[in-house]
């Protein structure tokens, strides 16, 4: 599946549902919970930060390959590699913890692999989850 949404302003819910209703999505509820969480984190980042006022597109895709689910996100917004962000220190106390920086960390923990590249003026983010 590959779908382009343009423009993306205020379209978070629609983009998330587009991905989650793909026929490539596994039906296992426990896995669905994790996938939805990770999809939501990535989509929210793109909708909020990729473009000024959300005036741009995102292409989202799903594919099953070699026993794994690939979820892809492509946008032509500001160049941003979320994988370069430092992980939050999860040993800190409530007072020391920063509010934020959790979304991409959750994705790293819950997915088997995350890949990023900047190519042809676009951010390409891929989340990979092995299906057993």
């Amino acid at each position, binding site marked *: 599946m590959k779908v382009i949404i343009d423009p993306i302003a205020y379209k978070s819910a629609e983009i998330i549902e587009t991905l989650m209703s793909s026929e490539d999505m596994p039906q296992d509820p426990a896995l669905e919970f994790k996938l939805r969480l990770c999809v939501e984190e990535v989509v929210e980042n793109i909708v909020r930060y990729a473009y000024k006022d959300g005036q741009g597109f995102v292409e989202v895709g799903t594919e099953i390959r070699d026993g794994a689910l690939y979820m892809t996100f492509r946008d032509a917004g500001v160049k941003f590699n979320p994988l370069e962000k430092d992980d*939050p220190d999860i040993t800190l106390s409530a007072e020391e913890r920063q509010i934020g920086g959790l979304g991409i960390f959750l994705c790293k*923990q819950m997915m088997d692999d995350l890949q990023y590249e900047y190519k042809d003026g676009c951010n390409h983010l891929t989340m990979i989850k092995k299906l057993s």
Partner: protein
Amino acid sequence: MNVTINQEGNKFNVILEGRLDTTNADQFQKDIEPLMNGDKPEISLDCTAMEYTSSQGLRMFLMLQKSVNSRGGSMVMVGMNPQVKEVFDITGFSNIIKII
């Protein structure tokens, strides 16, 4: 996300029902405003019917815990489902918020 707050003095029994995500985190922040004031609050969050939380929701719970700590109060989350609990475990929130 449905938020029901039952207050008796400084004791708050709060029932959370549904999904907490990016579409309703702002509303949730408004809904829990009664919990953000007063000395030494004792807050119990009944999470039995809370189906889901994203990182937006985690931010709200961290904000609330910080506020409670600064006022010398206590907060506990009760009855969390295993999947939501895993989100709290992975992010280290289980160490800073009491979950029973």
